């Protein structure tokens, strides 16, 4: 089973507050600790007792549908909102009380970009770089993210994906110890997305803690070391992708439970297969869990053939994060 929030936090060594320079911090140290965070807007709790931990040198994905409270959570960590309850510790410090000390050490990419519309792309990056003592080389960073083709274009005329890439460059130019990326690949074409993923992976290798929010399962699956699934302001599951999608099965999955997914004509009976209950999640989309053997697939195709039904897709294997989310909430992630 996925770990519940309550059982997780102590898994990793904790940095002591005011521990100091990046030289002493090690990958795996806790970079962010959110404990019982509550944030209300007009009396409604958007974040409702949320707890999570993110490590240095690791990518933590906060995954959830739109409106789950991801952005609000991240904004509380960035010192942009004050929590109504619970606590947030960023690099061992308080994001509001210690804001001045944290600002140089934490990079931020906002969901709405936060880029002034009248300036040229490269000019904006150079401007933010001036805020730091030892920023990354602007030219190198621009090249890494393919900003060169629109370096002299004003932000106003950039496409969504170009703005996102610029905003990411702005977030990492100060060589932060921890970066918050709010939906970093939203509105991006596949090439941009790949460039962003590569950069994020490199940051991890360099020991940077990365916290990203996303509603894209494949992004979380491809990038994240740790996934925190959030819904309605609460953490409903967290762990590594592997922990989340493994349903307690053995390595080859033979002798334990498997998930079988089937796409075919709607209206098939639940007892199509002996010993397995076939659930129709959506019209024509079935799923069942249990011991799936080679013979099970033979039985399935025979049962379908007897009804003159053609399966358009059959798959057996581990669950996806979408399955985890569905199992926990009964709702689709997107």
């Amino acid at each position: 089973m996925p770990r519940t929030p309550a059982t997780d936090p102590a898994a990793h060594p904790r940095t002591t507050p005011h521990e100091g320079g990046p030289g002493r911090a090690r990958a795996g140290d806790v970079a962010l600790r959110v404990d019982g965070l509550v944030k209300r807007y007009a009396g409604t709790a958007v974040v409702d007792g949320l707890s999570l931990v993110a490590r240095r040198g690791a990518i933590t994905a906060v995954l959830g549908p739109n409106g789950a409270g991801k952005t609000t959570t991240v904004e509380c960590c960035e010192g942009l909102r004050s929590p109504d309850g619970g606590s947030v510790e960023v690099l061992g410090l308080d994001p509001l009380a210690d804001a001045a000390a944290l600002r140089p050490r934490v990079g931020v990419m906002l969901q709405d970009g936060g880029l002034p519309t009248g300036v040229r792309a490269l000019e904006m990056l150079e401007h933010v770089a001036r805020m730091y003592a030892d920023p990354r080389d602007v030219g190198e960073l621009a090249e890494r993210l393919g900003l060169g083709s629109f370096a002299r274009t004003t932000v106003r005329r950039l496409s969504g994906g170009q703005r996102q890439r610029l905003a990411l460059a702005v977030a990492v130019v100060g060589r932060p110890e921890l970066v918050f990326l709010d939906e970093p690949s939203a509105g991006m074409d596949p090439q941009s997305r790949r460039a962003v993923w590569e950069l994020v992976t490199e940051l991890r290798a360099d020991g940077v803690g990365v916290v990203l929010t996303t509603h894209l399962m494949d992004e979380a699956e491809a990038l994240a070391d740790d996934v925190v699934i959030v819904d309605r302001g609460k953490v409903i599951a967290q762990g590594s992708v592997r922990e989340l999608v493994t349903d307690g099965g053995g390595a080859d999955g033979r002798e334990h439970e498997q998930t079988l997914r089937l796409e075919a004509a709607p209206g098939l009976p639940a007892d199509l297969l002996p010993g397995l209950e076939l659930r129709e999640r959506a019209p024509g989309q079935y799923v069942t869990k249990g011991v799936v053997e080679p013979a099970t697939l033979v039985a399935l195709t025979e049962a379908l053939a007897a009804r003159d039904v053609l399966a358009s897709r059959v798959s057996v294997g581990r669950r996806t994060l979408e399955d985890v989310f569905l199992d926990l909430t009964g709702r689709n992630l997107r």
Partner: protein
Amino acid sequence: MSSPAATTPGVGAPHAGPAPAWRRVAAQAAFETRAILRNGEQILVTVLLPLFLLIGLDRVHAVELDTSGASRIDFLTPGVLAVAVMSTAFTSQAIATAFDRRNGVLRLMATTPLGRGGLLAGKVLGVLAVEVVQAVVLVVVALVLGWHPHAAGIPLAVVAALLGTAAFTALALLVAGTLRAEGVLALANLLLVVLIVAGGVLVPPAHLAGWWSHVAALLPSGALGDAMRGALLDGSIPVGPVLVLLAWTVVLGWATRRWFRWQ
């Protein structure tokens, strides 16, 4: 720490640290100044409008002006300089800040080492830098048109301009931090026009009709106009307008602290 010859892995290795505060604020001030001076609409309001008023009202005598014995250009220039202060500290700054706020720029810059305080300081310095540009242009043109300012009043005029800048910047931030960007765009331009026509800035409050003359004297525009005229026509600033500008700065500054929303 990091080797200068770092290859690709490691270029993003954490080496966080802020630039010195003065460099951050100076960079922001230069950034804000460039943004205003490069924007056509902002140039129109901050430079061309005051220039048009100066030359137009001096050359075209169709508009009756009671100059109380002073030459037309001597009488006009202080008021036009006051208009220049209003256009930059209020109209231009309100619009720029409102759109920065809507686009999340204020929030983003607040997460960089610049912070909110640095952002504000950069904005104020940016306003002052644009005012220097305006003053140079307007003073040169006024001198060409035969302006003879009261020499002793020039430092006083600078003080008056600073007081006006404080009051109008506070007003700019108040509207920019509380209203929608489109609303600010309309209000900031409209209010500038209304104050130019009836706010006692070009025409002294005392010359306005009836009870309105008393109201105009209490407006920041009327007070700034009177302070500038006092300094540059007579070489002294009357106490009343100074107190009015200080009061507006305190009240508007307080209201801005109270109601300004960063997002």
